[in-house]
C-alpha cells in the first residue's frame, strides 16, 4: 500500500465513524441472518421513516454539543410548539395545506430557541441548567397555560401531509407494504443545509471554534454570544419542525409522548463520535449513531428479543460505544505524550 493510503487509513482508524459503521453493519447482518427480514425493502423504508424525527433532533443536538453546550429541552420545546400549532389551526378550523403549520411551528420554535439562546448566549449561564429549566417551563406552559389534552384529530392539511408518500415499498415475500413519507425530504434538506453551514460558513466554524476554546474564539474576533444565540434559535426551529412532522405522521397529537427522548438522541450523537465536551464530531457520525439506536429500538424484535429488553440493549450500546470513544481519546493522549518525549530525546 502506498504511504498516502496508509496515512489515510491511520487517520480513518482514529475516527469514530468507521467503528460505528462496522457495529451498525454487524448488527444489520445479525438481524438479517436471524430473521431474513432486515434487508427487505419494506423494513429499510420503515427504518428510514422511523429515522426522520430522531434524525432531526440529532442534528440540533449535534450542533449544540459541538459548540460545547448541551440541550435537554428539545423534546419539550418540540411538544409545546407542535401542540400549540395544531391546537391553533384546529381552533380557527384551518382547511389549507401543511405550509402554514410548518411556518407557525418554525416561528414558535425560533421564539423558544431564542429563550434558551438568550440565557445561554448573552447571560452566559450553563447550558445544562438553562435547558433543564426551560424544559420544565415549556412543559408547564403546554400543560398549564394551554391546558393540553390529547388531540385525536389534526387539521386536514397536516393529515394529508402525514400520509402522503414518496413511494411505497412492498415486501415480495410477506406482501407487507411500507410508505416512504414525504417528510423524509425534510430530514435530507435540513441535513444538507446544516452540513453546508457547518463546513462552509464562518458561522459554522464559529460553532466548532467555540466548542474548542471559547476564550480563543472570543480573542479571534468571533462574536461568541451572538453565535450561540442564533444557534439555539436554529436548534429550536429544527426541533420544532421535528415535532410538527411527528404529529403529522402519527395523525394525532399526544402532548407528552416525545418527552424523555433527549437521552437516546444525545447518546446517539455521542455514540457517533461527537466529543461530549465540544469541538469535535461530524454530522455523518451523529446520523450513524442515531441510526444505530433507531435500529436497536425498532428491529430487536426481529431477532426475537422481547421489547421489554430494549432499554437494556440501548443502555449497553451507549456504555460500550461511549466507552470506546473515551478509550480512543485516552490512547491518543498517551501516544501524544510518548511522541513528545521521543522528539525531545532526538534533540
Amino acid at each position, binding site marked *: 500500500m502506498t504511504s498516502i493510503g496508509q496515512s489515510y487509513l491511520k487517520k480513518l482508524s482514529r475516527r469514530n465513524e468507521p467503528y460505528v459503521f462496522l457495529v451498525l453493519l454487524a448488527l444489520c447482518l445479525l438481524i438479517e441472518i436471524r430473521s431474513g427480514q432486515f434487508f427487505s425493502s419494506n423494513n429499510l423504508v420503515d427504518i428510514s421513516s422511523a429515522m426522520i424525527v430522531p434524525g432531526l433532533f440529532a442534528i440540533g443536538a449535534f450542533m449544540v454539543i459541538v459548540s460545547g453546550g448541551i440541550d435537554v429541552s428539545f423534546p419539550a420545546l418540540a411538544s409545546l410548539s407542535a401542540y400549540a400549532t395544531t391546537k391553533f389551526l384546529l381552533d380557527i378550523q384551518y382547511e389549507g395545506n401543511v405550509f402554514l403549520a410548518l411556518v407557525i411551528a418554525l416561528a414558535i420554535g425560533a421564539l423558544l430557541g431564542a429563550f434558551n439562546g438568550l440565557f445561554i448566549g448573552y447571560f452566559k449561564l450553563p447550558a445544562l441548567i438553562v435547558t433543564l429549566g426551560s424544559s420544565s417551563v415549556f412543559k408547564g406552559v403546554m400543560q398549564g397555560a394551554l391546558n393540553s389534552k390529547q388531540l385525536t384529530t389534526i387539521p386536514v392539511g397536516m393529515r394529508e401531509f402525514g400520509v402522503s408518500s414518496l413511494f411505497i415499498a412492498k415486501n415480495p415475500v410477506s406482501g407487507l407494504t411500507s410508505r416512504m413519507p414525504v417528510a423524509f425530504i425534510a430530514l435530507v434538506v435540513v441535513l444538507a443545509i446544516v452540513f453546508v453551514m457547518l463546513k462552509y460558513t464562518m458561522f459554522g466554524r464559529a460553532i466548532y471554534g467555540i466548542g474548542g476554546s471559547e*476564550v480563543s474564539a472570543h480573542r479571534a*474576533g468571533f462574536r461568541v454570544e451572538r453565535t450561540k444565540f442564533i444557534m439555539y434559535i436554529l436548534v429550536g426551529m429544527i426541533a420544532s419542525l421535528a415535532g410538527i412532522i411527528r404529529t403529522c405522521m402519527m395523525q394525532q397529537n399526544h402532548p407528552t409522548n416525545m418527552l424523555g427522548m433527549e437521552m437516546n438522541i444525545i447518546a446517539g450523537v455521542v455514540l457517533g463520535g461527537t466529543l461530549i465536551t465540544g469541538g*469535535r464530531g461530524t454530522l455523518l457520525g451523529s446520523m450513524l449513531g442515531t441510526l444505530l439506536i433507531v435500529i436497536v429500538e425498532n428491529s430487536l424484535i426481529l431477532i426475537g428479543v422481547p421489547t421489554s429488553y430494549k432499554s437494556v440493549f440501548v443502555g449497553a450500546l451507549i456504555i460500550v460505544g461511549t466507552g470506546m470513544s473515551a478509550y480512543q481519546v485516552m490512547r491518543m493522549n498517551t501516544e501524544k505524550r510518548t511522541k513528545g518525549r521521543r*522528539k525531545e530525546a532526538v534533540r
Partner: protein
Amino acid sequence: MGEKLLNALNIDKSFVGVHALNQVNFSLSSGEIHCLAGENGSGKSTLIKVISGVYAPDSGEIEFNGRHYQKMTPIEAINQGIQVIYQDFSVFPNLTVMENLALNSELADKRKWVNWKRIREIAEESVKKINFKVDLDALVGSLSVAEKQMIAISRALMFNTKLIIMDEPTTSLTKKEVHRLFEIILKLKEQGIAILFVSHKLDEVFEISERFTILRNGEIVGTGSTKELDQKKFSYYMTGREFNPSHFIPEHIEKDALFEARNISLEKHLRNISFELHKGEILGITGLLDSGRSELALAMFGAKQIDEGQWYKNGEPVRLDSVRDAIGQNIGYVPEDRLSEGLFLPQSIGDNIIISEIDKLTKLFGVMDKDKKEKEIDHWMKELSVASPLASNACQTLSGGNQQRVVLAKWLACNLDILILNGPTVGVDIGSKHDIHAILQNLARQGLGIIIISDDLPEVLENCSRLLVMKNGEIVANINTSTSDEKTIYSYML
C-alpha cells in the same frame, strides 16, 4: 533602533478598590525587544490589556504609530498592528493547523463563507514567514507547546503587525525551544517589528531584551537598558526586598544514611542508580529532560515500580511499590506539575493542606474533628505564611508561589522523614522562590532529608549540599556544590 512606536503617557487604571496602574509612562520603538517584568499582581497584565485595547484607561493617553488615542478598542489595536500572544496561545485545539492559522485574518476581513482553498493559501503564506514546518492538516491539539506557540506567532504576523506582545512565552518550553523562539524573535526584530516580552525569568531578560521595564504594585520602579541590570538590582526592583543568596550549609549531617538506593534499574529510564541521603542534608538531582531524573523521582515515591535494585531506609530494606508504601515510609513528593498532580484547585486552601493527614483528624466513628482541623490549617497557613485572607478560599485563587506553599504544607503536616521536590520553583516568582528556598533550608536544619530535582542550576547550587548529575538514566557525577560551578555541571549533563 527605529523611531518611537508606542508611547503610553500617565496611564491610570483602577478596579474596584485596587489601583492597578498608577501614572505609568511607557514607551517602545520599532524593532525594539523590550522586557516587561513584575511579580504577580504588579499590574503587568493590566498594562498589556490597556495597550491592546481590552481595558480603557481611567486617565492618560496612548500614542501609537503617530496617532493619539484616549482609548483603543481591541479591533482598532489589531488594525493598527498590535498583536497579543497570550500564555495559552488562544488556539483551537480541535481544529486543524490550517484553520487555526487562517481563521483570525478571515474574520478580520469579515468573510462570511469559508473557502478551503483560500484558507490553505493563507496558512501556507503565514508559516512561510517564520519558516515554520508543520503538517497543515494536523489537529493543533496534537502538537507540542512550542509548535502551538509557533502557530500563534505565524498567525499574528498576518496583520501587518508592528508590535507583538508575548505574555510569558517561555513558561512551558524546554531550553532548546526557548532558544529557537529567541531566534525567531530576532528575525522579527530585523523586520522592524517591536516585541514586548513579559517574563519574570532573569536569564531570559538578559539574553534577549535590549530594554526592560519593571512594575511593582502598579508603578514603574525601574526602566532602562538591560546592560545596566544585574541579578541583585533585578530582584530588588521586582520585590522591593534585598536578597542575599545564601548557600545552604548543613549544620549537622548524620553519619548513617537515612535513605539509600542500591543498583536501581527501571526499563530504559534508569540504570544502576545508587546513592545515599543523610538526615539534615539537601541532595540535588539534575540532568536534562530525558536523563531519567523525573523517573527516579517517581520511583522513589512508589509511582513507578523498579525492575531491579533495593531501597533502604535507616539501614533496613524497604519496598516502595506504590504511593501508599512511600507515604507509609514517611516519604513525601511535590510533583513537577503542582497544578494537575499536587493540588485540588477548586477546593479550599485549608482542605488541600490537611488532605494527606485527614485520617488523623477524626473523632469517634471517623467523624471530622472540626476544631482539630481548623487548628491544623491555621498552624500551617502561618508557618509557611500563605498569603490569603481566608483558608476557605479556593486554591486556584492563589499565585504560583503560594500554591507551592500549600503543597509543601500538605506534606509537612504528615511528619515526613524524606521530602522529594521535583522542580520546586517552576513558575514561581522571585520573592516566593526565595521564601520557598528559605523554608526548605530551614526544614533540612530541623533534620528532614530533602531531595530537590531541578534543572535550574543556580537553584540547586544555592540550596543543595550535594548534587547528583544524571545522564541517559545513569548518575554520571556526584558533586560537592560548594566547590563547583554551573559550567562544570553543565559539561556533565551534556
